[in-house]
């Protein structure tokens, strides 16, 4: 396993060298004897399945936690960061997988955290901070008022703010842990071009993603982890690194076709869910959230409806409105021919509607609680007897079976879910809703942070559910995913449905056209 250095014509000395790093948590060895190098002006992809140890490695590099053993050399000097500040001082800037903005502060303050621009008298100049941050977020294509509190932003917007912040810091090494997991094509393209520019300036970048096309397109080299061990390095060989090669390294066997195009299934089911003229009010807590401006939509039993749209197009808002999570101003929703008006998620769930929300950390997981509780919380009725006592054995059996089908990597059902890798957390949340067996399942970014193998499994599961007659609405920012599983696809823009086509006819180009019309024209209204 010798790193093939031949690819780079004149290999500059490594900026960062990781030598034999091991990290153990209680009972789990997350990393074992991992070594790698990053050179200035290079984009190194770090790949691996969920739980392979990518985030753990990156956290060690950015001073969040110390390694159990091993050595790190940065710029020729041994590097033992005790806290994130030590890393930051050397020019190591990190975008963490779990969003790490401060929700109570504004966008501008988050960007300038700890380094607010000072005016005369040494006092913070709010005006300068806001002006500068406006320019900074504009670089990643974000156009919002920098005085908005971060708690009012969507996940995608938060991710963009984090990226913008990281890019605005003086850096020699940028560590990006799944920065694109909630972004759509447009934003990803912008990020890629910025990364390209940084590479030219001699900045080193470590980049983690589960979207292999992305990785393949931008990475100069890749390091692949498997079960906490080094699985190997891959180099650009004239052209981009090919996906099958990556997958083989990741999973240890030859890759099969991952995104199978849907065959034209016979979806003759009746209309199960029907939405007419749906409008929502501006939510006082989230002034930034898109308002639906009259959405009409039909969802048939046994069908997977893909919903595509750019960040902020209103897809999440649509899902939340149907689910009773947000207040509806006008319009009707009918389920199996009966008009329904769910006022709370509990109402919607009782009617047979489920929602996997996009913001895992804030809206889905109970971080400190065990996996078992996280799994069964939406189906407590199913796993308890009439007297209200939990039927724990049944509950455990159910979890065990989902653990197998979804290949959830975990230590025990009692383990707090925060100890799981991001992708595995997502699988537990999916299992939560599968256990509920709803009539209508809405999944909002269902595979955010899920690795390729598991992603295919999730798609498989969605198809199987649909085959059993469940109506599925899938919101995803990853067009290949939308194309892979949808029987039918609608596109949204600014709170309206802008197009519809059968999945089999759709292409990325056609969808993009419907999704992305010039937004700036309408911005002033």
């Amino acid at each position: 396993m010798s790193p093939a250095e031949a690819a780079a014509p004149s290999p500059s000395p490594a900026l960062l060298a990781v030598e034999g790093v091991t990290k153990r948590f209680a009972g789990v060895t997350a990393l074992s004897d991992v070594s790698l190098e990053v050179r200035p002006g290079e984009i190194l992809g770090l790949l691996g399945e969920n739980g392979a140890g990518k985030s753990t490695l990156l956290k060690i590099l950015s001073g969040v936690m110390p390694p159990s053993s091993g050595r790190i050399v940065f710029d020729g000097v041994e590097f033992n960061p005790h806290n994130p500040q030590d890393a930051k001082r050397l020019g190591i800037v990190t975008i963490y997988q779990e969003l790490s903005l401060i929700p109570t502060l504004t966008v501008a303050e988050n960007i300038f955290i700890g380094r607010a621009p000072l005016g005369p008298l040494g006092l913070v100049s709010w005006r300068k901070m806001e002006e500068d941050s406006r320019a900074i977020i504009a670089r990643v294509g974000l156009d919002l008022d920098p005085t908005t509190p971060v708690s009012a932003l969507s996940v995608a917007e938060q991710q963009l703010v984090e990226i913008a912040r990281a890019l605005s810091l003086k850096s020699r090494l940028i560590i990006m842990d799944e920065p694109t997991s909630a972004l759509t094509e447009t934003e990803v393209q912008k990020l890629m071009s910025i990364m390209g520019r940084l590479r030219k300036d001699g900045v080193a970048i470590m980049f983690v993603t589960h979207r292999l096309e992305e990785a393949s397109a931008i990475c100069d080299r890749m390091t692949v982890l498997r079960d906490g061990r080094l699985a190997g390095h891959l180099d650009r060989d004239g052209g981009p690194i090919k996906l099958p090669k990556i997958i083989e390294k990741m999973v240890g066997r030859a890759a099969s076709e991952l995104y199978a195009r849907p065959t034209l299934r016979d979806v003759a089911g009746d209309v199960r869910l029907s939405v007419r003229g749906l409008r929502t009010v501006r939510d006082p807590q989230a002034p930034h959230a898109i308002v639906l401006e009259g959405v009409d939509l039909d969802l048939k039993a046994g069908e997977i409806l893909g919903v595509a749209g750019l960040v902020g197009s209103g897809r999440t808002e649509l899902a939340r409105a149907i689910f009773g999570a947000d207040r509806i101003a006008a319009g009707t929703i009918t389920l199996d021919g009966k008009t329904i008006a769910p006022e709370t998620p509990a109402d919607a769930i009782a009617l047979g509607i489920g929602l996997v929300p996009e913001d895992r950390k804030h809206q889905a997981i109970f971080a400190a609680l065990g996996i078992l509780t996280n799994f069964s919380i939406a189906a407590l009725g199913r796993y308890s007897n009439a007297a209200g006592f939990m039927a724990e054995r049944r509950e455990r059996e159910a979890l065990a079976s989902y653990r197998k089908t979804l290949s959830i990597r975990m230590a025990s059902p009692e383990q707090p879910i925060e100890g799981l890798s991001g992708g595995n957390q997502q699988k537990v949340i999916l299992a939560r809703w599968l256990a509920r067996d709803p009539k209508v399942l809405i999944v909002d970014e269902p595979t955010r942070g899920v690795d390729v193998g598991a992603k295919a499994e999730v798609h498989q599961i969605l198809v199987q559910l649909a085959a059993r007659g469940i109506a599925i609405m899938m919101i995803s920012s990853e067009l290949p995913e939308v194309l892979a599983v949808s029987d039918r696809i609608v596109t949204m823009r600014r709170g309206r449905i802008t197009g519809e086509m059968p999945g089999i006819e759709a292409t990325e180009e056609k969808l993009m056209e419907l999704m992305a019309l010039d937004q700036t024209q309408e911005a002033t209204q």
Partner: protein
Amino acid sequence: MTSTTEQTQRGGINVARLLMSFGPLMFLALLIVVFTVLKPSFIDPINIFNIMRQISITGLIALGMTFVILTAGIDLSVGSLLAFCGMVAAVVAKGGTANTLSLSTSGTQGFGWFAALLAAVVVGAMAGGVQGFAITRLKVPPFVVTLGGLTVFRGLTLTISNGGPISGFDASMRWFGTGLIGPVPVPAIIFAAAAILCHIVLRYTRYGRAVYAVGGNAEAARLSGLRVDRILISVYVIVGFFAGLAAFVLSARLNSSEAVAGIGYELTVISAVVIGGTSLFGGIGSVGGTVVGAALIGVLQNGLQFNNVSSYTQSIVIGLILILAVAFDRWLKSRVRR
């Protein structure tokens, strides 16, 4: 194959958990040993039962407070509510506010112990419900609502009783405070039974799961279909119920309901819960921890009094030991995790 791995893994985590929960428990054991060495009669059954009887009042309320704190709430009104419920119980037991001072033990006055008990717990639960309603519907933080409750209930109590106590209950009522079953004081038995019940509810029922979930992440709980508001209201009803029950037992024990009862209890009760490992930010904690926390405080106070330590020094020692007990627990946990 997989099942064996699972089992050993589960076993491993359980041992770790047990050890972790041993933090306050080990400290409690240590205290008992130290006090016994200092004065062997400390461990006499009489004194142990004294301690159990003493912690039963605040302990009962602490059980209810555990529910509240698990939802990331707080109830500062418990001391005043205790006084209020006690006064209500006294009025019912005596059949009115006349004749408030007779110490007679004739069995015929008023409406009897059962009516008094019922009145105390119903009033307590209702008062809790009203506060829960203000918290969920008016969206006023629990701290503010129950701080308001603290002064309102005290004012109501003083108004009912015009500042004075109501004393002298019949023997059947007094049994709940002073009686024994075998050698064990009745209040201790009530507390133990309530603790077991609460443990079962929190650990083994759907409702208990929901309480933890609401405290762990209220928004996620809502999106998982839990009726968050109802659950929040319910925990304030529960703590109110326990304040009422504790009030009844206290009045029975003192043979008197006083307007000044329970002043400052909120802090004692919350400490018991927090020392027992329940997080003020919700979602983490257990009834077992609360019982240990209450016992720790009780043993500490009794042990220092037992050794006739001066009250000034007592304050200092109690404060330091409470901090040490929790610090020790944290230290132990950080060790086990490694």
